[in-house]
Every structure is written in C-alpha cells, then in structure tokens.
C-alpha cells in the first residue's frame, strides 16, 4: 500500500481578526516524523497558527496541506489531527478511560477494541491504573498524560501541542519534556509544538520556527538558531538568559572599526563595517567579568550575583543597559561596584539597525 508521505505544509497563510493581523503570510514545510516547535512571545500568532492547522480557525488567505491533502476548507473533525490543549480540556464528567476513548467512540470503533486500545495507550503513558478516576481526582501531571493519551489514541496524522507544559510545576515540566520527546521519537508522528519557552523548544524540537508579530522570522535546528540568529529578535529570544544586546554605532578608523556604545568604545582590528547605527550582541557565557580593564573590556557596575549551583549569574549595568554574564566557578565571585567586562571577540554578533545579523 502506497501512502502519501504525511507532512504539514502551510502556503502563505494569513489570518486577520478585525484589524489585527494575527498570522502574516506564513509559509512552512514540516517534514514527516519531525518534531517542530513554534516559538515566540505571547501574542505573536503561534497559537493561531496551530489552530489554523487544527481547523479551529479558517485562514483569511493561503492553503494548508496535511499529508499531501488540501485541508484548508475541511472542518477540524475531518483533518485527522490530535491536539493537546494548554488547559488539557479533559471532560470533567467523564473518567480518564472515557476521555481517552472519546475519539474512538466517535469513530464508532467496537467497544472491545476501544478498551484494548485505551489500555494499550494508557499503559504506555503509565496511567493505566487511574483510568476509572475523574480528571479532578488525579494530579496535574497525570491529567497532562491523559490529555496526551486522548490526542494519540486514534493514531492521528499530526500531533498538535498548545503549550501543554505551562500548567505544570518546574520539576514536572522537566520530566514531561523528556517524556514527550521520547514518546514522539518512539511513535514517529509529525508533531507541531507551540511554546513561549525557548528552553522547552530547544530541548525538544528537531527544528524551531521563531514567530514574531505574526511572521515566521527564522526556521532552523535549535543549534543553528542559537549560533546563527538571523536577527536580534531571535538572538534575544533564545538562550537562558538570552543574548545581551547593546546599541551603538560604528566609526571607521585607520586600523579597523570602532564600536561606540553608550559609555564605552571597542576597537575591532581587521574588521570593516559600514559606518552607522548597529547593535552589538554577545552571549552571557561568552564574556568574563574582571577587576581591571583590558583591550576588549567594557566598564560596568555590578548589580547582583545569583548563585545557581553549578554557575553564577551576574547582572551588570552598562550605562543604562542591563546585561547578564554566566560565570562557571566553584567559589562565589568577589566583585564589588565597578568591574570590567571582557568580551570574547570571536563570539560577538553584529546586527544592523533593522536588527538583521551582519556579523558573523
């Protein structure tokens, strides 16, 4: 039996609510069995994009394909997708068994087969001894597993997750990440995962699409995005804490190019840039705090030191800007007041005044 390769395709899809353009000309290709994360700040249109794929919203413009079939005009019940909602949306009057069985019951599967399939899925998700309970009688993590079970019980062509971990506490969230990633790889079902948590997206996804103001601004593997963000929006979104970005401008000089910031300037030898306003970016792990000035150092004031166990997170003030630096050290660093920030010049980023990356 030949089956068309199931994958999801969005062709210049837009969604307008009144005067608000929630999704603006989004084109995406999601491969078969891929774990794809849609990442962005709240209100960037990522959830709307997911709802468009699920069929809960109709696009104003553009076409959507699932497994090679044009589903743009199909209602959600004919799209064969499984979705996990942020609040899980488990029906409060049904037991976990009935909840998980619901998609099968709708498909008129014989009760015996339903029971077998529900038990199979539930034991896979380690909730098979809770099936007789109501959603209100199990914990948040168990509810989440039940919601996942309900989404996958009918073996859909695509899994859709709408911030499924945001209602869990921090420890459970880490467990659930690993669990979901493992499950997805095991089942090999194409998955689209919406989140505003960059750590979650980086940890779980094969590829990430970063959304900003209704547009997809960059698509790539987690490391691609981390190492080569196309724009300062992406750079400022990924990483924990994200990249430090300082505004300034370039001035040419005889032996290179000088970056002039608010309260400092750095000379980059052997580098040539256009003169004009730019942004200088560097990751918190690519700078060092020292007690004395050196060649590539920036004067700063120490604001706080947060011990995180394996590392220390330092917050510094450079002029009016706040930046973060990660320090890997056994001892608590003893800095007070005025310090210098030493940059690793091989790891800096330059963005032009529109925010596009021009270096490296």
């Amino acid at each position: 039996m030949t089956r068309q390769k199931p994958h999801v395709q969005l062709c210049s899809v837009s969604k307008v609510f009144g005067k608000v353009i929630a999704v603006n000309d989004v084109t995406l290709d999601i491969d078969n069995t891929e774990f794809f994360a849609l990442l962005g700040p709240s209100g960037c249109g990522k959830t709307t994009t997911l709802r468009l794929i699920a069929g809960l919203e109709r696009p104003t413009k553009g076409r959507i394909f699932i497994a090679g079939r044009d589903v743009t005009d199909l209602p959600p019940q004919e799209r064969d997708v499984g979705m996990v909602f942020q609040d899980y949306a488990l029906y409060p009057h049904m037991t976990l068994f009935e909840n998980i069985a619901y998609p099968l019951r709708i498909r008129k599967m014989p009760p015996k087969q339903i029971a077998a399939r529900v038990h199979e899925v539930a034991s896979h998700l380690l909730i098979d001894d809770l099936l007789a309970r109501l959603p209100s009688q199990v914990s948040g993590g168990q509810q989440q597993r039940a919601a996942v079970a309900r989404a996958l019980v009918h073996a859909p062509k695509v899994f859709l997750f709408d911030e499924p971990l945001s209602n869990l506490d921090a420890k459970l969230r880490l467990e659930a990440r690993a669990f979901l990633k493992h499950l997805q790889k095991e089942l090999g079902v194409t998955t689209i995962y919406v989140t505003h948590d960059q750590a979650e997206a980086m940890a779980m996804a094969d590829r990430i699409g970063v959304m900003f103001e209704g547009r997809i601004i960059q698509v790539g593997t987690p490391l691609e995005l981390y190492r080569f963000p196309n724009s300062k929006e992406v750079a400022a979104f990924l990483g924990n804490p994200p990249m430090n970005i300082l505004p300034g401008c370039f001035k040419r000089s005889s032996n290179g190019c000088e970056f002039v910031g608010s309260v400092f300037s750095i000379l980059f030898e052997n580098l040539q840039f256009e003169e004009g306003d730019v942004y200088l970016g560097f990751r918190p792990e690519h700078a060092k705090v020292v007690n004395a000035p050196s060649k590539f150092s920036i004067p700063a004031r120490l604001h706080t030191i947060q011990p995180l166990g394996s590392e220390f997170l330092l917050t510094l003030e450079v002029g009016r800007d706040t930046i973060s630096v990660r320090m890997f050290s056994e001892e608590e660093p003893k800095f007070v007041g005025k310090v210098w920030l030493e940059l690793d010049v091989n790891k800096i980023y330059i963005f032009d005044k529109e925010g596009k990356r021009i270096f490296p």
Partner: protein
Amino acid sequence: MRVKARKWGYKLFIVLFSLFILFFFVLPLLWLLTAPFDTKATLRVSLPSTFTFNNFRTIFANAFAIRALFNSIVIAGGTMVGVTLFATLAAYAVSRLKIRGRDILTYLLVLFSSVVQGTAAMVPIFLLLYRLKLVDTHLGVIFVLVGGLLPTGIFLMRDFVESIPRSYEESALVSGAKPAQVLRHVVVPVLRPGIMVLAVWSFVQAWGDFLISLIVIRSPTKMPAPIAIYSFYTEGGTPVLTLVSAYALIYALPVVGLYLFVNWRFGFRFFGGIKGSGR
C-alpha cells in the same frame, strides 16, 4: 473598649433585625403546617385543638381539586421542558456566537419579558391565542409562560455556558465529533447543574402562575390548582380555612420535593459564573 462595644452593638442589631425579618417569613409557614391538621383552623397560628386528617380526606374526595393538581403538573411540566430546552440552546448560541450588541439584546429581552406576562399584554395575548385556536388549552398557557420566562432563562443560562472553557468543545471537534455530538456528549453534561437550576426555576414559576391560566383556561376540568383553590371558598366568598390550608400544603409539596431532589442529586449552584464570584 468603645470600638468593641460598638461592634457588639452592631452585631446585636443585625441579630435582632434578622429575627424580625425571619418572624415575618416563618409565621405563614408555621400556619401552613398547623392549620391543615386543625378541625377549626383560624388565621392565627396555634397548635391544633383537635388533631385531624379529615381536611385531607375532604380534598382527596374532591375530583375537581385533584384534577386541578394534575393540570398544574401538565402546565408546569410543559413550561419546564420548553424553557429548559430553548433557553439552553439559545444561551449556547448567544454565548458562542459573537453578535454585536448581544448584551444589550439580552437585557432588552429580559426587560420585555415582564411585559409578556404582565397585565397590560393580556388582551393582545388572548386575541393571539384566540386566532391560534389555543384558548382553553394547556398548550396555550404553556406557550405564554414559556415566552415570558425564556429571556430570563437565557440570561441565567448564559452565565453557566460562559463558565465552560471553549477548549472542551474544540478538543471534541478535533477528536472528530460533529457539532451536534459536541453538544450532546460534552456541553450538555457539563451544563447539567445549570440545566437543573433552570428546570426547577421554570417549573416553580409556572406552578405558581395564576393570571394566565385564569384568562386562557375556560373549562373547569382544565383549571390548574391556583384557580381550583377558590372552590374551597363558600358561596359568600369567605375561605374555608381548614380546606384552603390543607390544599395549599398539598400544592406546596411538589415544589419543596423538587428542590430537595435536585439539591440531593446535583447540588444547587445558582449562577454558574457571575463575573468575579467563585471562579
């Protein structure tokens, strides 16, 4: 010390005032519990001088009065079904479809509902029912009552519907359910407490109706209990208190029973989610 004294004074005032109010409400109820069992009931509350069930015997022997109770059940039951069904569906539609100015629409409807059952509308309503050949039918009474109760019913129900997260319905849709299945499998079961409140409320409203039945119903065999109670008046127009009170007690029991049943089975939750309370 002064503050404490004032606090106590305030508490005392509240208690006394509550007792005063309570007294007013409890007195008629006490009468309703004592008078039916008294051979010589008066308008005073007093323990029966001689305890008797004879008053009830007289009433159960009165076929007209008993038939009136059944008529009341038909009218109240019909109204309950009509109001519950239509108010639930309408509230769902009003809540889920974004219609411009729907709040104003609902408030206007609630406002106008008092007109439908008000005295001023009785002549046009009678004429309308006459044209529809519904005068002297229970259906006619039910139509008018349903029409009058619907707006308030929709208003009440809308709060219940709005307290249901939309993701329930969306998740059912994605699971493959058709809109009618979503309603049957998810929305109605989740709404059940609200539907129960609405059903009891509309039943009680219709059960207590006097004016509309008086105007619409002509034949004595179709009259409901609130009108039939007048058969326990003497020809001179004075009530036979023993029989009136006994009949009133019988008349009150179904409503009390209904409240107790729903409360036991579902627990009352008035107003599913008036904003800001209990969320």
